[in-house]
């Protein structure tokens, strides 16, 4: 980091030391730093849980015992039965299996490929799986709208669910980019009336908020609650129809192919239990910090807009856009100042497309910053960020404007 220092854009403009100590990591929605309890569980399980849990020998039985314990613990946290829950190799894999397995179980040659719906602000894994179904099986796909805060339009969602031959409806628990909580209870009621299974992608909220009721399928990702990368969760209600969409395999209740990573699954379970235990304390602190960012950014930065629902939101995520600023420059300059954030601006994406979430909301996509606070975020770090941001934005605006003339 020292190599990036200079006199005007130093790594520590507020003089707090935050940028130098790593306290400016604000990308927990991409990856929450590994919880200490996950590290302890992982190290212990590397010694005890390495064998094949499907085998009957003592090493295998020990691995199976650990896997069973992890499954019971995660199932209890997420509100399902252990036999409804499978571990996957990522949140994305969980979503793909959920969407494809639920739809293909209900498709039939005689009644056609059917219809799938998802809100426009779902994780790209949901939208990509729906698109895949359309291309490969000719299923119809409806993408339903959201309001300016990113909240799904329940009436449109319910009307789409009531369409003939609807095989699956998908609504996230909360949005991963702007933090807005989705009306899952109302959507679940509409789906129950229409007898349509509902997939709730709870990746953004699991471990931070209770899981909403009313789902038929549930997905989540451990790295977003402080577990290791490479562990996802797929839960399928016993009452929901589901069929393996890929070549069958005996693992994980015949729902997920491949050898489960028992040590990392144990670490994921330990961190979820720890995150839930700390939730009451952490939630209030993060909520207050996010509220401060929401109030301070538009007050200190001219032409800045804060996105998402100010009240019905996740505790740790806030997204805003600064007019006349390029997002890539903003992320780079903030990084040089010691603050790690993500951005939905097109220039930051591999695809060069702006965030589909911001686009669906009709929100400004350039100059975009997502701040997502890890559980250990400090008042001091947020204060330093709020000091550092206005001069950085002002400097980029001057540079961009000079480039247009």
């Amino acid at each position, binding site marked *: 980091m020292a190599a990036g220092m200079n006199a005007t854009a130093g790594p520590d403009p507020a003089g707090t030391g935050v940028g130098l100590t790593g306290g400016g990591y604000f990308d927990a929605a991409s990856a929450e730093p590994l919880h200490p309890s996950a590290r302890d569980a992982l190290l212990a399980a590397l010694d005890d849980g390495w064998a094949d849990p499907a085998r009957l020998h003592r090493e295998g039985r020990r691995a199976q015992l650990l896997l069973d314990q992890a499954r019971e613990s995660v199932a209890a946290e997420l509100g399902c039965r252990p036999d409804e829950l499978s571990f996957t190799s990522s949140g994305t894999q969980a979503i793909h299996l959920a969407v494809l397995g639920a739809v293909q179980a209900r498709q039939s040659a005689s009644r056609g490929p059917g219809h799938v719906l998802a809100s426009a602000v779902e994780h790209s894994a949901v939208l990509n799986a729906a698109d895949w179904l359309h291309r490969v099986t000719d299923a119809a796909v409806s993408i339903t709208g959201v309001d300016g805060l990113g909240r799904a339009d329940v009436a449109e969602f319910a009307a789409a669910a009531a369409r003939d031959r609807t095989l699956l409806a998908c609504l996230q628990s909360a949005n991963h980019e702007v933090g807005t909580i989705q009306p899952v209870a109302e959507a679940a009621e509409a789906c129950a009336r229409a007898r349509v299974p509902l997939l709730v992608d709870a990746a953004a909220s699991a471990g931070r908020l209770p899981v909403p009721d009313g789902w038929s399928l549930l997905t989540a990702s451990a790295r977003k609650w402080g577990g290791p990368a490479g562990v996802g969760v797929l839960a399928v209600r016993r009452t929901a129809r589901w069929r393996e969409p890929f070549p069958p395999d005996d693992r994980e209740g015949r729902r997920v192919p491949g050898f489960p990573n028992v040590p990392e699954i144990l670490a994921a379970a330990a961190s979820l239990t720890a995150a839930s235990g700390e939730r009451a304390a952490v939630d209030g602190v993060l909520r207050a910090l996010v509220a401060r960012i929401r109030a301070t950014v538009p007050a200190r930065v001219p*032409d800045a*807009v804060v996105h998402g629902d100010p009240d019905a939101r996740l505790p740790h995520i806030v997204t805003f856009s600064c*007019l*006349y*600023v*390029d997002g890539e420059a903003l992320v780079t300059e903030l990084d040089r100042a010691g603050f790690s954030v993500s951005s939905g*601006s*097109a*220039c930051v994406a591999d695809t*060069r*497309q*702006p965030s589909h979430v*911001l*686009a669906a909301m*009709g*929100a*400004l*996509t*350039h*100059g975009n910053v997502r701040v997502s606070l890890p559980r250990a975020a400090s008042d001091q770090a947020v204060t330093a960020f709020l000091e550092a941001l206005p001069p950085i934005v002002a400097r980029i605006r001057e540079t*961009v*404007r000079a*480039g*247009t003339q």
Partner: protein
Amino acid sequence: MTPSNRRPSLTLDALGKKCPVPIIMLADRIREVPIGQTVEVLADDPAARTDLPAWCTLKSQEFVGASDLPIGWSFVIRRCY
């Protein structure tokens, strides 16, 4: 494309320019047309499709519409004040 079929009073060529440059060009020059008249912005950065309407909402200008060009789009904005 423009509901009144009137030609835009000013055309800004932002083809090949990445956001936020098309927005900056519009913000800098919209006052060159009389109130009630329109500005056309030509742009091919996909972000412009979201950001020009969003800018109009933020700045209380009227986004009249967009149409496809062989490369990119033509966006029409009416100056409201």
